[in-house]
């Protein structure tokens, strides 16, 4: 996949001195779903806002499809749809007119058939003549998505798309995102729901204190950083871990029935073969075994808990 968005050394310092973005470089590939993870105030929204034209960057350069976002802003913005985090709607407008308004703002003539399909996709068609003030929060969120898609963008930015929405809408949104991806739309979403990134993203970027800590293929990230655990159900309970096994990272359950071995699956050797052999030597037998992999959430928490020199630990792979 070729790069669609190229961000080079982007920084943003607000007038109060707050550094929201600190030398961020990132390439986003055409057709991918990139999830930007990070705690509140990490710089996710500022990053999106800078690309979309809502925030003036202090330094650095961003190009979209080869066009500079400042010099060629018309070309870059035509390609982008933005769903903001806040439910910002003109309360006195109807669903249909607000969606048509956005299409007009992006320089497109009316297309009744397209808008009808879009509203039907988002289960908004029945509400097309309703005033926005009469819609529920979930419906308003759908309207924002409809507005962002009204001009058929090639890139969709979703800033915390499922913040405060119910399970049904969240799943609807996930389905919609997958559908858009099938059409070739590049999607960048910010979230602090790990589940969302795990469910949808091809790549995951972790951002904290304005710095991009890493960008990695989700599967690679989970494989590379994920710790694994091998749990063995013992045939005969143990009172304590035998002396000859103390060198292994083992944990015995309180009832002595299960033994848990933690290992790094990126290491040269997992040590499983040696452990099984050592267990056999001290006559510890097991009836069943299974492995667990750490979730993206655990990886994320680990990353944020490690001091800043973690940047050196984690290679940025773009």
């Amino acid at each position, binding site marked *: 996949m070729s790069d669609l968005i190229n961000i080079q050394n982007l920084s943003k310092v*607000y*007038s109060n001195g707050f550094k929201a973005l600190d030398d961020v470089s990132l390439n986003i590939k055409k057709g991918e779903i990139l999830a930007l993870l990070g705690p509140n105030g990490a710089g996710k929204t500022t990053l999106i806002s800078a690309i*979309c*034209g*809502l*925030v*003036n960057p202090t330094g650095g350069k961003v190009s979209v499809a080869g066009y500079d976002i400042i010099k060629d*802003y*018309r*070309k870059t*913005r*035509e390609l*982008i749809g*933005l769903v*903001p985090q*806040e439910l*910002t*709607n*003109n*309360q*006195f*407008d109807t669903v249909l*007119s607000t969606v*048509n*308004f*956005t*299409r*007009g*703002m*992006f*320089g*497109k*003539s009316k297309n009744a058939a397209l808008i009808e399909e879009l509203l039907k996709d988002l289960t908004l068609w029945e509400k097309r003549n309703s005033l926005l003030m009469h819609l529920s929060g979930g419906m308003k969120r759908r309207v924002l998505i409809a*507005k962002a898609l009204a001009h058929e963008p090639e890139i969709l930015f979703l800033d915390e798309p499922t913040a405060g929405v119910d399970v049904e809408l969240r799943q609807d949104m996930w389905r919609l995102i997958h559908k858009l991806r099938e059409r070739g739309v590049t999607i960048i979403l910010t979230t602090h729901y790990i589940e969302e990134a795990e469910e949808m993203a091809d790549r995951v970027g972790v951002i904290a204190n304005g710095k991009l800590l890493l960008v990695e293929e989700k599967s690679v990230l989970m494989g590379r950083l994920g710790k694994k655990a091998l749990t063995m159900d013992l045939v005969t309970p143990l009172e304590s871990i035998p002396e000859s096994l103390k060198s292994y990272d083992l944990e015995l359950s309180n009832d002595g029935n299960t033994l848990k071995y933690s290992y790094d699956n990126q290491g040269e050797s997992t040590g499983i073969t040696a452990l099984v052999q050592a267990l056999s030597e001290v006559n510890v037998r097991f009836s069943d075994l299974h492995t667990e992999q750490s979730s993206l959430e655990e990886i994320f928490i680990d990353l944020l808990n490690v001091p800043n020199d973690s940047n050196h630990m984690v290679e940025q792979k773009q």
Partner: protein
Amino acid sequence: MNFHAVKAIYVFEMARWWRTIYQSIVSPVLTTSLYFVVFGSAIGSRIAEVDGVGYGAFIVPGLIMLSLLTQSISYASFAIYFPKFTGTIYELLSSPVSYFEILLGYVGASATKSILIAVIILCTARLFVDFEIAHPFWMAFYLVLTAITFSMMGFIIGIWADNFEKLQVIPLLIVTPLVFLGGTFYSVSMLPPFWQKITLFNPVLYLVNGFRWSFYEVSDVSITTSTIMILSFLAACIGIVFWIFKTGYKLKT
């Protein structure tokens, strides 16, 4: 040029006005009718002609200017302040529109609305007093240029304001007094000499008198000065708007 965007903003603003049509049209018509009843008929009947024009007719251009100025500022300031207040400004800033196109949409809609109001007031005034328009072209020139200039001023106020109080403070505390003291209801020659000189510093005086001249060919100041003043106003507003857009003042962080 993104004509679709200009049209979208213009149509949206006109539709918003149409939704509150009673407030938008009935209110200024009623207010103006009251001015004519009170100042034109009740008090005006006891006032002699001013510069050879009956008092009822004399105040017509001033009253139209009063509405034109205040409504232009009010429409445009609210139009741009409201998206800032609700947060929908993100849509303007992330769309492929130039600042000029945004300005064209908002100021165009605001000027259209205030000109329509002015025309309605003109027609209403005709029901109360008899008058002729000596120079229709110049009347239209002043009407359109004043509507555009003060819509731009309203646009600037709407961007500057970050609360509803600020939105009202300039129109209420500066513009309205200037309009009332700018010869709307009287000729400057009716004032004592000292106040005549002070009034010459009131920019609205030149707008009202230029407009009045287009009706009755009477004016306290020269028509050239009036034209220069309105064009200077326009140039100042364009300059400020250009600076706002260049710096992103109160629009972008």
